[in-house]
């Protein structure tokens, strides 16, 4: 019952928000500018208003942002220590050759 009410609330919020300005589809299209901080202030305000009414788009924005944050750490410790050692040896030889 609670889930059904939540679903109805989310859906109605989403429809009201779209009627007032930006649709979910447009919001997702503009999300990159919103998250990267390059969106004009007027559009940013429209998206902020939509987030207040639409839980799904708010979830989309939060998980989109979290995806970027997680990506930043993915290359750490990816290089095996033996590759690191081989590279150091290789470059020492190259420097000595020159």
């Amino acid at each position: 019952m609670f889930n059904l009410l939540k679903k109805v609330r989310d859906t109605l919020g989403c429809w009201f928000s779209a009627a007032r300005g930006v649709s979910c589809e447009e919001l997702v299209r503009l999300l990159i500018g919103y998250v990267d901080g390059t969106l004009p202030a007027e559009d940013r305000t429209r998206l902020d208003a939509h987030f207040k009414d639409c839980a799904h788009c708010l979830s989309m924005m939060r998980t989109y942002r979290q995806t970027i944050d997680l990506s930043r750490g993915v290359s750490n410790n990816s290089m095996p220590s033996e590759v690191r050692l081989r590279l150091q040896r290789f470059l020492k030889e190259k420097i000595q050759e020159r």
Partner: protein
Amino acid sequence: MARNPQNTDTLIEAVTRLQSGDKAALESILEQCQERLYYYALKMTGNPADAEEVVQEVFVTVLEKIGTLREPGSFLPWVFTTAKNLCFLKLRGRRKDQDATVSLEDYMPRFNRGHIGAVEDWSDRVESGALSKELARHLDAAIQKLPIEYREILLLRDVQGLSAEEAGKVCGLSVAAVKSRLHRARLFVRENLSQYLTGAGTKQASWE
């Protein structure tokens, strides 16, 4: 790894020192760049041996051609352009079906008359920037599955922290094209992480 302003300053200093003939500066550059170049080359070629060779060749280029770099601040776009060209040389001659053949469209959000389907918020389930081994493995696999023209942009922009302008220079694309590809790449990776973190079996948020 995002670009840390402090690291970048040290990197610029090291590049400047190398340009003025101080070979010891290469060690500092190596320390700051080897990991990120290796990961980039590994994800681009999908092959550890190729990635190792690419990193070696990039550093040989750095040693031999550092004098041709006009702005030390452009070092990262310069080395990633070199790395990118070397990766594509490695990829040349490989059968196309060895590369990712996934359809991005299957992983994009779905809309019904402009309204999005249910989206679960899993952002609180992982600490910002905190990657468990298991999550890192899924993220890694999602990046590897991206078609290469999207993968290279996501690697440069989000993993390596290059600006949209710098990523555009490396890939020969306009800023608008970089943003367009990056957005789709992020949505693809986000959906892959969603499936893992929420245990959802569907490929995209569905309209209910």
